[in-house]
C-alpha cells in the first residue's frame, strides 16, 4: 500500500491537519472567561495528611506527650504565634503567610466522621452527610446549575488522567487532561472525527457515555492545546509532577482560558509507618510548588482573582502509633490562598487536644460551610441549591 495514501486515510498526514477545530470551542462562554473572572483552584492531598504535624500546636504539652517520637522538635517548628507554628518543611508557605496571602482554618470536619479513605473522600467530594450516599460532586452540581448553556466541559478542568467525583454532575462533568499536546494529537484522528460527527444514537448507558466523551474531547482538545501554548511561565517550579501540574494551571489561567475551576491532587499522605521523613518530604514538595504557583499568579496580576483551597480527606489520630506513624483520624486543617482573603492568617484557634472523641479531634467547622462560602462569595451562586441545605457561611 502507498504510505501517503495510508497516512491520508488515517487523517494523520500533515495535509489533513488543516481541518478546522470545532468552532464551538471558541463560542462565547457563559461563565468565567475573562481575566476579571474569578478562578477557583482545588488542591487535594490524598491519603489523609497529618494536620498536627503540618501546623503544630507547639505550646501544647499534650501534643508532645501523645507523640513522644513523632512530635517535631522546637527547632523544627516555624513559630507564628504563641500557639501555632508551621512544620519547617513548609518554610516557603511561611512567607506567603507573612504576606497575608494565606489563611489556615483549623479543625475542619463533619459530624460522625468516617475513617475510611474512600468513604471520607467521597463525603468531601459529594458534600454529603456521613450516612448519605451521593453520586454527584459539589463542583459537578455547580456545573449543572450554572452551566446550562455550556457547550464544552472544560469549564472545570482536572489536571489528571481521571476525573474526580467532585467534578461529576448529573448533566455536566469537568474535563480531565494531563497533557494538552498529547490530547490534541489523539483528537485529530480524522476517522474518529468522522465517526463522531455521525454518532449513532445509543440507549445503553456506557456506549452513549463513550460517544459523548469522545465528541466532547474532540471539540475541546484543540482549544486547550492552543491555550497551553499562549503563555510560558517565567517562574521556576520544582521538579516533580505536582509542581508540573500547578505550572500547567498557572499557564492556562494566565492565557485567559475559559476555565473557571481547576482541580489537582498530590498523594502519599497515608503515613501509618515511619511518618516523619515521608511527610516532611511531601510537605516540602507541596510548599515549594505552591509558593512557585502563587508567585507565578501574582507576577501576572492574577492572584487577586484566584482562590486556592487545599484539603485532605481526614487528619490523623492525635496519638502516634507504635510504628512511628499515625492512623486514620478526623478533623484537619484547610488552607486557603489568594490575594483577596478577607481573614488572613489563622482563621480560628488551635485544635483542642484536651477534648478528644476516642482519641480523635472533634471538628469545629463543617467543611460544607467553607464550600458554601466559596460558592456564594467567590463563585456567586446559590450555595443552598448546590449543597442541598443551608450552611452558615464563613467570612473567608
Amino acid at each position, binding site marked *: 500500500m502507498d504510505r501517503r495514501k495510508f497516512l491520508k486515510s488515517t487523517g494523520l498526514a500533515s495535509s489533513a491537519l488543516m481541518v478546522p477545530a470545532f468552532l464551538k470551542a471558541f463560542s462565547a462562554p457563559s461563565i468565567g472567561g475573562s481575566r476579571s473572572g474569578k478562578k477557583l483552584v482545588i488542591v487535594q492531598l490524598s491519603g489523609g495528611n497529618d494536620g498536627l504535624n503540618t501546623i503544630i500546636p507547639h505550646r501544647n504539652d499534650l501534643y508532645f506527650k501523645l507523640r513522644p517520637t513523632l512530635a517535631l522538635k522546637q527547632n523544627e517548628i516555624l513559630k507564628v504565634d504563641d500557639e501555632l507554628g508551621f512544620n519547617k518543611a513548609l518554610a516557603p508557605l511561611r512567607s506567603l503567610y507573612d504576606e497575608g496571602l494565606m489563611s489556615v482554618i483549623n479543625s475542619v470536619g463533619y459530624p460522625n466522621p468516617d475513617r475510611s479513605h474512600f468513604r471520607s473522600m467521597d463525603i468531601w467530594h459529594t458534600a454529603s452527610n456521613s450516612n448519605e450516599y451521593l453520586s454527584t460532586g459539589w463542583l459537578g452540581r455547580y456545573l449543572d446549575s450554572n452551566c446550562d448553556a455550556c457547550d464544552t466541559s472544560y469549564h472545570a478542568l482536572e489536571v489528571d488522567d*481521571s476525573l474526580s467525583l467532585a467534578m461529576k454532575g448529573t448533566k455536566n462533568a469537568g474535563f480531565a487532561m494531563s497533557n494538552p499536546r498529547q490530547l490534541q494529537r489523539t483528537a485529530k484522528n480524522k476517522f474518529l472525527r468522522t465517526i463522531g460527527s455521525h454518532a449513532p444514537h445509543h440507549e445503553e448507558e456506557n*456506549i452513549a457515555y*463513550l460517544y459523548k466523551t469522545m465528541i466532547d*474531547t474532540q471539540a475541546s482538545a484543540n482549544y486547550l492545546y492552543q491555550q497551553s501554548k499562549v503563555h510560558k511561565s517565567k517562574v521556576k517550579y520544582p521538579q516533580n509532577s505536582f509542581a508540573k501540574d500547578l505550572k500547567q494551571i498557572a499557564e492556562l489561567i494566565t492565557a485567559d482560558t475559559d476555565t473557571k475551576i481547576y482541580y489537582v491532587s498530590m498523594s502519599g499522605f497515608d503515613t501509618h509507618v515511619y511518618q516523619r521523613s515521608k511527610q516532611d518530604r511531601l510537605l516540602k514538595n507541596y510548599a515549594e510548588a505552591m509558593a512557585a504557583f502563587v508567585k507565578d499568579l501574582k507576577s501576572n496580576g492574577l492572584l487577586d482573582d484566584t482562590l486556592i483551597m487545599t484539603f485532605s480527606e481526614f487528619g490523623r489520630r492525635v496519638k502516634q502509633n507504635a510504628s512511628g506513624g499515625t492512623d486514620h483520624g478526623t478533623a484537619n486543617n484547610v488552607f486557603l490562598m489568594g490575594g483577596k482573603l478577607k481573614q488572613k492568617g489563622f482563621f480560628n484557634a488551635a485544635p483542642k487536644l484536651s477534648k478528644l472523641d476516642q482519641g480523635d479531634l472533634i471538628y469545629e467547622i463543617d467543611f460544607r460551610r467553607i464550600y458554601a462560602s466559596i460558592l456564594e462569595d467567590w463563585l456567586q451562586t446559590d450555595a443552598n441549591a448546590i449543597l442541598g441545605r443551608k450552611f452558615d457561611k464563613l467570612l473567608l
Partner: protein
Amino acid sequence: MEKSKNIQHLYWRAGFGLNAEEWNVKQGLSVARCVNLLFAEAKEASQVAANTPWEAGHRKRAKKLSKAKKQKIRARQQELLKTENFNWIAKMAAPDSSALLEKMTLFWHGHFACVFKYGSTAINQLNTIRTHALGNFKDLVLAIAKDPAMIKFLNNQQNKKRSPNENFARELLELFTIGRGNYQEKDIKEAARAFTGWHIDQDGKYYFREKHHDFGEKQFMGQTGNFDGEAIIDIVLQQKATAQFICSKIYRYFVNDIPDEKRIKTLANAFYESNYDIEKLMRTIFTSKWFYFKSNRGTKIKSPIELLVGIMRSLKVEFKEPRTVLFIQKALGQILLKPPNVAGWAGGKNWIDNSTLMLRLNMVTYLMMATEVDFKVKEEFEASMRNKRMDKIKATIDLAPIVDTFAKLPEDQVFAALGKYLLPIEVTALKNQILPFTEVGTTPKSRIQLLTMWLMSLPEYQLC
C-alpha cells in the same frame, strides 16, 4: 448467529476474547462445551502454578547490609517486578494459557489489591491467588492474610499486642469480605487484636510471632472468645452478608455494572450454601440464561488490561520491551501489580476520561503504525499527531490469521463478519462512514487490514 454472539460474550467475560483461529474453532462447539473447556483448562493450569523461587536474603539481616548492597537488591527487585508485569500480560495474551484462570486472578488481584515493592513477593502472591482463584473463598482469604506482600502493604508487621495496627483488619472487613455497614468500629479494633503477631520472618515468609500475639478474649460481631485471625475470618464468613458482598462484586465485574439484586441474592445464597465454592459460583454464572441476555452483552467497558490483552490476542502482538507495555498501562490508567490503593481499580465508567478515551481509541492505529504491516509508515511519518512514546513501540503484529479467515468470504460480507468477530454491538449504521477509509487499500487483503484497524478504533470496541 445467536450462538457465535454467545461464544464471543463468554470468552470476553471469562477471558480476554479470542484470536481469529480460536474464533474459527469455537464456532463448531456448543456454548456449554466452551464453558466446560474453560474450567478444565483452568483446573490444569492452577495445579501447575508452583511456588516460585524466593530471592533468599532480601530481608535477611537487612539492617546489617550496607546501603549499597540494599540499593542493589532493591533495584534488582524493581526490575523483577517490571518483568513479572510483562510476563503476566504475555501470559494473559498467550492462546495456550488458561484465559479463565488469568481472568479470575486479575479479578482477585483487584479485589485483594496490593501494591508491590518487590518482584519476588508479587510472583508469590499471584501464584497464591492462582491456586485458590477458583477454589474456596475462605482458603483464599486466609492465604492472603498470611501473604508476605499483603502483611507488608497493610502494616500487619507492625500489628503487635502492645500496639495494635488496624490497617489490615479494617480493609479485611471493609474491602475484602463483608463490606461497609455490616460491622462496627469496635469490630475492627478487636479483629486487629486477633491478627497481632501475624508477621513475616527474616526470610520474608509468614511467621506467627507468639510474643506479639494477643491471646486475650475478644468480642467480635457478637461472639466472644480467644479468637485468632483464622477464627475472625470464620466468623466473618458465617455472615451471609459476606457471600452477598462478594457475589455483588463478582456480578458487577463479570456480568453488568448495574447490579441485579434478585440474581445476586440467589447467587449469594448458593455461594453460602456451597461453603464459598468459587468455581461453582462462576459455573452458575456462565451457564445462566440471563448471562447471555442482550441486556448483558456489550455493556461492560473493558479495563485497560482487557483492552490491551484483547488487542494482543487478536493482532498477535508481541512487545519487545517490558517498558513499552508498562508505558501503555500507565497511559491508560491501569498498571498491574500497582493498583492505585487498597480498594483496587474502580472500573466501569471510571476508566474513561477525556485523555484516556482518546488514547484507547487511537491505540490500534498507533500499534499498526509502530509496527511493520504492509505499509512502512515510519520513516516519512512527519504528521504532528505522532506520539513520541508510542512511536518508539517495538512490537510485531501478525494480521495473517484475520486476513486468512475473512478473505475467504465474498468482499461484501466482510464488513458484517469482521464486525461480528471484533465488536459486541452492530455498527451497520456506520458502514457508509467506515468503508471509505478502507478504500486506499488496493487489494482485498489490505482492505481487510484497514477495516480491522478501523473497527478496533470504534467506541464499540471499548466494550465487551
